[in-house]
């Protein structure tokens, strides 16, 4: 089981970039962290999501 933005999902084995695109994210606007390590944008396509991964998909929003 993979935890992505706090939700448990069965997506182990999937390519990160494909997962993001299929789920309606625009990869250009995101920063991704996997198991507390930052994944650079250029590497989204070369990352395979592993079982037990904890992934955060983040973006900028309004703030003070």
């Amino acid at each position, binding site marked *: 089981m993979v935890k992505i*933005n706090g939700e448990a999902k069965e997506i182990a084995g999937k390519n990160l970039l494909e997962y993001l695109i299929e789920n309606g994210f625009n990869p250009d606007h995101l*920063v991704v962290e996997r198991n*507390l390590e*930052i994944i650079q944008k250029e590497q989204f396509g070369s990352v395979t999501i592993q079982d037990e991964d904890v992934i*955060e998909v*983040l973006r900028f929003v*309004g*703030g*003070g």
Partner: protein
Amino acid sequence: MEDKFVLGGKEFKSRFILGSGKYNLNLIKAAVEQGGAEIITLALRRANTQEKDNILDFIPKGVTLLPNTSGARNAEEAVRIARLSRAMGCGDFVKIEIMRDAKYLFPDNYETVKATEILAKEGFVVLPYMNPDLNVARDLQNAGAAAVMPLAAPIGSNKGLATKAMIQVLIDEIDLPIIVDAGIGKPSQACEAMEMGAAAIMANTAIATAGDVPEMAAAFKLAIEAGRKAYLTGMGRVLARGGSASDPLTGFLR
């Protein structure tokens, strides 16, 4: 002579740092333009596929982005957020914001110093939000902060310069730009802080909750400029007692 505001090696004409929270993305461009702001703050949050709009598309080109570390409860979390924000590829500026008090939203000064030290060493331009205290401001300076951001009043309160005397101490004693952040609710309060010698004003809620967001940004611009000009000019003196006529006292009835 042109009055430039230098922060992290960058020169700014404007001394107004605008927040982007709590109002419609469609108003950001107008608020930035009307307010003349050259720095805008942002927050980092979990992305959600339902929201297609990207805030970066609403911010005019050339505006420096200042991501904050809101949500962080300790130095470790703030460092994590800062690094993730930098990975967005929008520069090295970061506003450290560390809170563990949910009622007043007061920053944790101790954790803020720790995060400042780590991030400054990593090349960030670190702007720490802090509870005004001279010793902590000195610690932040030694830790490599590019400026110090004391709060005027609790975040989002619009209560004005509740910490005025302490902010004045920081302005007088700390050799870094003092940016008054949080609690400034009206242009007159921004003006007053600038008259005191603050280097810049950061405001969000005062503008976000105003009747007209871009117009209030414009009002803040004028107030900040007026206060800055007054500070640079040197204030007129205050009499300890009595009055002093502004007109010649002789030449007609006497």
